[in-house]
């Protein structure tokens, strides 16, 4: 028996976990539609990514009235699409953070050979539960604290102080989405950054996130309506 018979035959996972606000306020101004479009695009892009250097695994936690695993952690190449989320109820961000921490600490779901995870939070309002305790627990936890965290503030009512605290990527700042298109642009920027990282020689290192480049989608009609 050769040594190579003991080798893994899959690339190391690159985990991406989205915390998506699906509270009632997201129903206004086309925000939930834009979020659904952005997540669909992200799934489609990740599914088509090469698995040569890293295998992107995607999970989505929604928090609208309740926090739940909307998309359980799944290798992206196995995804064919994603159902649209509905906007409803309160904003239980604390419960969502608890779910996220539990997942990131789970060594069966995310083995230690995985690359440092990416955690994305998109929200348009103020949390309606205690988010600070779960957030501090996440920051103090062994593995979850190591995730690269990006945050998106949707609209003028977003809790920017909380989102700024959440965002920890040194190369970028909290992104503001004043309209539906900006939501899509943010997720496109995250998608491009993760995809670049998964293709790089060293997926352990974060790839810069570039919001400006994400605005150039050759397939998009540049019309304001």
């Amino acid at each position, binding site marked *: *028996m*050769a*040594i*190579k*018979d*003991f*080798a*893994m*035959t*899959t*690339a*190391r996972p690159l985990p991406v976990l989205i915390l998506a606000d699906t509270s009632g306020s997201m129903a206004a101004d086309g925000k939930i539609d834009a979020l659904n479009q952005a997540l669909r695009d992200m799934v489609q892009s990740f599914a088509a990514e090469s*698995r*040569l*250097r*890293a*295998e992107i695994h995607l999970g989505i936690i929604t928090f609208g009235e309740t926090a739940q695993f909307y998309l359980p952690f799944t290798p992206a190449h196995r995804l064919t699409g994603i159902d649209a989320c509905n906007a409803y109820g309160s904003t239980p961000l604390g419960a969502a953070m608890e779910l996220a921490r539990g997942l990131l600490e789970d*060594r069966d779901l*995310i083995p*230690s*050979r*995985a*690359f*440092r*995870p990416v955690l994305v939070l998109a929200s348009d309002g103020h949390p309606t539960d205690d988010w600070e305790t779960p957030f501090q627990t996440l920051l103090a936890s*062994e*593995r979850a604290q*190591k995730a690269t965290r990006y945050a998106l503030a949707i609209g003028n009512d977003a809790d920017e102080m909380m989102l700024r605290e959440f965002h920890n990527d040194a190369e970028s700042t909290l992104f503001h989405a004043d309209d539906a298109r900006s939501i899509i642009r943010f997720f496109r920027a995250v998608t491009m950054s993760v995809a670049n990282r998964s293709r790089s*020689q*060293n*997926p*352990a*290192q974060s790839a810069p996130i570039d919001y400006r480049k994400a605005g150039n989608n050759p397939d998009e009609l540049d019309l304001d309506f």
Partner: protein
Amino acid sequence: MGLRLRAATVRGPGHIADGLPNQDAVLIRHGRRDWLAVVADGMGSRRQAALGARAACTAVRRAVREQSFDSDDHTLIRAVYSHWLDHLAQRRVLPADAVTTCLFAWGLPDGRFRLLQLGDGLILGHPEPVHGLVQRPGGVFSNETTGLGLSRRYADWHGRRGRLDRRGDGLLLMSDGLSEDLVRTDGLVLAVIASLRGRGARSARAALGRELHAWPTPGHSDDKSLAVIYRT
């Protein structure tokens, strides 16, 4: 009853593509008084990672030369660390620029051995209980580890003593370029020993090198190092 020490290290595809040197280092020594195998993996993000790894091999060699085999772990660790720091200081290299893991097996002709490990990588043995001696420390992801130049605690080291008694007993020391991509470890020590049986040192090194170059995990990019010690 004899003892064989074999080792190989190869540059990972990532470093080949980037034009970087091998940042792993291995050392095997088999003398009349004792034997030694060292595997060190320089932390790729540090400028002098390759030097740090080579310095770790040198430091362990110097430490075991001056220490008694019965010295306690703290004394041995301190000696290794001191020699590593001296080696860097002579070359005006900062420890933080040369961080490296350090795994070694030091043994006597009668089969007794002692193991020490700081940072990622894996030491496996046959028979148990050495098997799977040092697992990755919990709470980390790929390519995140501690090492010489980072760690300041004895508790970061893992140590064990044991004995290679019978023909076929053996030890494997490997860098995380290999250990992170193992689907299982049961039987690996025996498989490696079997693949080397009947080969001379040069032939064994070449055979191991071919195996490491042909590593089948998609996307593997790290340098890979393996040291093998076994009873014949």
